[in-house]
């Protein structure tokens, strides 16, 4: 096959695969052979606003993403905005868009399809994938930023009761501090039971909980955690921002 044949084939293919459907006044849906994993075509629209042209998704990407993954925490929203901005797009209340010019329209449509694909891949951050990230982050922070407090992992305060485990045992100015990294209802309850057991046994300690996302726990579980612990970090971001300063105050 000659080079010109390939060029003509591709040009014809691209031309044949693109079409435009008017959906509303000044709003057109671009039909392109680009699909989500489930086979649904990705949603790309061309919006005309006065003399301006926008390539946008009318909020459809985040709606599609929400079938399997919600942007419902600050860290997820931060990742979303970083993906959008790092790839040259803009975000307006759920709508992803790229302002464009006539001579840049094709390039921006291709660019936009990449943004949609990357945002859609955020579903890989759902719980089963992200659980290791949360625990890894906590582990790394404790052993780097709090290393001077001699952290020990998987500490069992009561001999013979290894069902009651402390995730991290630190010594702050001679005072035992028990850190519990909590992700999900089950871990929250296990940590609460452990802390209350240590209290019942009158062990001298300070109990600190780090939640991956406290707001996602049920109301009952939230109350139990608050009652059992002396200090709660609301999510990993909170721990990362406030953790060092908090421990320094404890040590002083």
């Amino acid at each position, binding site marked *: 096959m000659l080079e010109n044949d390939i060029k003509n084939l591709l040009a014809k293919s691209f031309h044949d695969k693109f079409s435009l*459907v008017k*959906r509303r006044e000044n709003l057109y*849906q671009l*039909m392109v*052979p680009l*699909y989500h*994993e*489930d*086979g*649904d*075509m990705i*949603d790309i629209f061309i919006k005309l606003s006065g003399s301006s042209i926008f390539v946008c998704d*009318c*909020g*459809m990407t*985040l*709606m*599609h993403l*929400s*079938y*399997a993954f919600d942007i419902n925490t600050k860290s997820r929203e931060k990742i979303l905005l970083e993906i959008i901005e790092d790839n040259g797009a803009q975000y307006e*209340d*759920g*709508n992803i868009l790229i302002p464009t010019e006539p001579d840049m329209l094709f390039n921006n449509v291709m660019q936009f399809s990449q943004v949609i694909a990357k945002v859609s891949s955020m579903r890989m951050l*759902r*719980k*089963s994938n992200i659980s290791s990230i949360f625990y890894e982050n906590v582990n790394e922070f404790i052993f780097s930023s709090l290393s001077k407090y001699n952290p020990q992992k998987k500490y069992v305060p009561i001999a013979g009761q290894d069902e009651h485990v402390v995730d991290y045992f630190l010594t702050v100015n001679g005072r035992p501090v028990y850190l519990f990294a909590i992700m999900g209802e089950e871990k929250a309850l296990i940590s609460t039971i452990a802390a209350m057991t240590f209290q019942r046994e009158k062990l001298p300690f300070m109990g600190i909980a780090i939640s991956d996302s406290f707001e996602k726990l049920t109301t009952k579980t939230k109350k139990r955690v608050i009652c059992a612990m002396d200090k709660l970090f609301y999510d990993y971001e909170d721990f990362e921002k406030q953790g060092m300063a908090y421990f320094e105050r404890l040590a002083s």
Partner: protein
Amino acid sequence: MGVNISKEYLDALITSQKQFKTFPRREMASERQFMRNEFEAYAPILDESFHVFMRQSIVFLENYSIGLVWNRKNDKPVILFRCNGPHGGNENSSHRFVTHIHRLNLEEAAVNRFVETDTKETEEYTTFEDAAWFFLSYCGFRIEEIEKYFPFLRRMNLFGK
């Protein structure tokens, strides 16, 4: 690890009688550019738990999706069944802007790829409300409970099934 389930078991997961474990909002909630609702369900005969989601675009009311997610024990959830509105194109259909239903692709699931690419056009519903009624009754929810928890569907479905 892939999931080796038969078509019969997939059908059973989708259609077996279900109970509401948590309850949907009485009205769809607005979030960004779409409306949403969701709840948890349980199939006592199979001892399996599910999540149901409902989404409808604010910009295009005909763009909606209502899905059944299987909350597998000790494994990541899987979308089994989805009723979609006529939102645009689909890789497996030459027609555009038609209502269609997605099902879990069992061949792909067997090799650990969980996608609802088994797609068929449908005439079972047209509007979001029709789709919600069809979805809930098809997925084994009792009519009395559908009417109780989705009163707006009852209002729309005066001549329903």
